[in-house]
């Protein structure tokens, strides 16, 4: 039950994008098409789950025992970047279609603060190994949900008469704002 709560809390109530403002750049950038948005979401979820595993291990097996807390950022980001690169290679090697669907998004994800944010939150919230993974999955699911919803909306807006100066990023932000208002309905759902 605890794990389920962690998952939903990360996915909906405390959605990374809509209430923690993490991963906004890809959220605005890659939400133009449902298909790419969904792939981006999946890729992010994938990287998030891997990140939660690896950074947890690094933190608890290397940094904490050696009192190297201060190397958190440097080591996390290096590990994430190398891992993403590795995964990209791997996917490219085993499956071209999968690479085209997911792989090309991976470099974008490296410079996505949701990933590093996730690693830091897991440390901050003192999650256990399993909890950390579930949290990562939940955050990924939440990101996927938010970005796919946004992409659906933006595809619809492509057909709309949005004032020219509001097209693109501004309207996306405004929609995100309204979405955030709507997600407030879930406030107090888990922790209340």
């Amino acid at each position: 039950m605890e794990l389920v709560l962690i998952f939903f809390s990360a996915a909906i109530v405390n959605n990374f994008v809509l209430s923690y403002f993490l991963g906004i750049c890809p959220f605005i950038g890659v939400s133009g098409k449902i298909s790419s948005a969904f792939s981006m979401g999946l890729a992010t979820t994938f990287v998030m789950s891997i990140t939660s595993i690896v950074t947890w291990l690094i933190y608890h097996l290397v940094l904490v025992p050696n009192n190297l807390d201060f190397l958190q950022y440097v080591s996390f980001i290096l590990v994430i970047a190398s891992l993403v690169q590795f995964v990209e290679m791997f996917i490219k090697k085993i499956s071209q279609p999968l690479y085209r669907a997911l792989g090309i998004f991976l470099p974008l994800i490296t410079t996505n603060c949701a990933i590093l944010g996730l690693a830091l939150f897991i440390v901050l919230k003192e999650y256990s190994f399993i909890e950390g993974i579930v949290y990562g999955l939940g955050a990924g699911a939440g990101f996927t949900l938010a970005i796919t919803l946004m992409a659906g909306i933006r595809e619809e807006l492509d057909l709309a008469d949005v004032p020219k100066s509001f097209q693109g990023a501004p309207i996306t932000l405004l929609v995100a704002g309204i979405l955030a208002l709507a997600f407030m309905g879930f406030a107090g759902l888990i922790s209340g």
Partner: protein
Amino acid sequence: MEPTLLIAIATMGGLGFLFAGSLAIADKKLRVVENPLIAKVNDVLPGANCGGCGKAGCYDFAVNVVEGKSPVNGCPVGGEETSRAIAEIMGVEAGDSVKMLPRILCRGGNSEAVKKMVNYYGPLSCSAMHLVSGGDKMCYYGCLGGGDCIEACPFDAMFMNADGLPEVIEELCTGCGNCVKACLRDVIEMHPEDRNVFVFCKNHDDPKTSKDVCSVACLGCGICARKSGGGVEMDNYLAVINYDKLDESTIPFDKCRTNAIGHLREINERETIN
């Protein structure tokens, strides 16, 4: 040295080594030879890797542009400057040495072209109007004035003048040719910048009908073609210029009763003076 320092150095050095190693392998195994254009386009992009173009980062966008899958103006971050730069790269590489500009070869605006006795209701788009009995002008060959070309221009280089005919702003035009593709009546053609003589009409009607439908139509009388030595040919009641053979001095411009054949620049000058 204190142990923390040592461990820190070891950790970071190790991680760096690991990463460099993995990249080295990646580099060895996955190198692809690419079109040099891609790098050129990539260079003028902002490099933000924001994905705003809908592609997975700047490089992917560059690949798509070069492959013709993304529009030159697809990068929202770089804005117009970048679009222009890309358009130029793509254009130059396409091998054009002389700048090509679109010319609008119809001068039957609202005050020249005769209208049908109808009120047209519906979308004011040329192609949609054309579907409904060819729109509300009597001429079935000329500009419909719906502005599909203007809509299609990614650089805002066209506007509709008060006579209901599109015009090109040469300074803003990149010569991308989108307007030509957009015009269903083939009224717009790309020509080298310095080309000056044109037949400003597309009407193939017989002389009588031509006269009935538009006051500036090419009537098809053939006077201009007669002594041109193949520089002007008649194609089903319409004078068509063969620029390879054209010798301007053989054309009796003042004999054309509707001024359908004439000079582009002279006309412009006359107009700015007035």
